[in-house]
């Protein structure tokens, strides 16, 4: 590749990776609170709500994310002539964000449930006997140990999410793999070149390396208690 071609390739990959990062952060920011809500619904004493959430978790975890992306992007328009996403890249990004947030919220909700259930009942009872309110017990007693308990499985999911964002190319979201693959098919005077696609892998590795370091630092920080 000439110097000019390298610039073209990396400009395209950078742009694609920016879209990857946007989808990653939007999903993370949306799926954590939604996951908490799904968990609360799942653990609710209101039977219909609990069953509904179980069904949702079953469907979302039991079917491929790719299918969910396709359904969310295409079905409203095809089946109901309803076009919530609008056209172009921004429409695809909105649809992908919704699909990813719902999908990851279901996984997160089960991790959060495990975290809550890992706190012994005695912690709550100790708080009650000491005259604390339920609210104080949640924030002052349970929250930090819960966070500590969910951090390792959450780290796993977060790293998986970075890579899963590439699935959004099924609805032609222009994320980094889409950008790299373009040079294989041929674009802007470069075709049949596999190197850009190979570079995309390096982007993922670098970003996941950074995340791994940050997450394990956080884990270390919480190592002061057991």
């Amino acid at each position: 590749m000439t110097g000019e071609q390298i610039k073209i390739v990396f400009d395209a990959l950078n742009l694609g990776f920016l879209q990857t990062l946007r989808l990653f952060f939007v999903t993370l920011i949306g799926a954590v609170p939604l996951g908490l809500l799904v968990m609360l619904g799942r653990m609710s004493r209101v039977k219909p709500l609990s069953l509904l959430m179980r069904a949702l978790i079953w469907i979302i975890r039991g079917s491929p994310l790719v299918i969910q992306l396709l359904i969310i992007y295409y079905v409203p328009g095809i089946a109901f002539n309803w076009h919530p996403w609008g056209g172009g890249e921004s429409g695809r990004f909105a649809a992908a964000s919704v699909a990813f947030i719902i999908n990851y919220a279901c996984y997160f909700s089960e991790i959060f449930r495990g975290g809550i259930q890992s706190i012994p009942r005695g912690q709550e009872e100790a708080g009650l006997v000491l005259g604390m309110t339920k609210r104080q017990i949640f924030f002052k007693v349970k929250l930090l140990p819960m966070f500590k308990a969910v951090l390792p499985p959450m780290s796993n999911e977060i790293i998986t999410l970075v890579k899963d964002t590439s699935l959004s190319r099924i609805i032609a979201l222009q994320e980094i793999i889409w950008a790299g693959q373009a040079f294989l098919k041929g674009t802007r005077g470069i075709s049949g070149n596999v190197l850009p696609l190979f570079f995309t892998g390096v982007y993922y590795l670098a970003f996941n390396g950074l995340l791994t370091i940050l997450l394990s630092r956080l884990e270390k920080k919480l190592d002061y208690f057991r």
Partner: protein
Amino acid sequence: MHILEVQGIQKRFGATEVLSDISFTMERGEALSIIGSSGSGKTTLLRCLNFLETPDAGRILVNGETLFDAADARKKRDREIRKKRLHFGLVFQSFNLFPQYTALENVKLAGQLLARERPDYQNHKSEVLSEIDAKAHALLKEMGLSNREQSYPFQLSGGQCQRVAIARALALEPDILCFDEPTSALDPELTGEVLRVIRELADRNTTMIIVTHEMAFARDVADRVIFMDEGRICEQGDPKEVFEHPREERTKQFLARYRQEA
């Protein structure tokens, strides 16, 4: 006036009657120990007193004030129960210290949170907090843990954890301090240090209810002993009397079994 009066407490879990017609009184400064085999309802009784279980019948009075009345149909609001709870302190078998806080923080936390509700809190914040701080230091010193104030629960032995838990309960100055088998989760060589602390509290006339399997301890430390069997008070009285001249057949059998093991 009795510091505690328990009248006809009954508790069912499903079809099982765990407590039936439990009635007794306690005087200020008295140490009462409750003995009996596992499943006789001792722990459930303590949990009822601390509002962790709701009795199906009966009344609980502290200093003549009715704290609980099962006949009083209106649902008690959380807020009310929370205040009433503070008449009692509870030391758990499994300590239940908060792992993310140091020994000192464990002792201080509840007091700090309760202080926020005081009307003068905003104006006297620093005095209130330093008062709580000083009290926590003093309590841990009493427990022989001055050098472990900054340790986290996982860095402490079981005996040390239990002593922190006792300090934590004492920090709120309950009228009646309850112990739920405080040494049952400890290695034999660690029970001594916890029993010593409880004995010191008894010597200073702390009003206490101690559920225990340590028969010798119950006999020596308690002013009165209650023997429970199948959810009922089978026999109660002066520890020397009950241990040396039990009147009831069930008490005799129970004590004989302990002597054999000892």
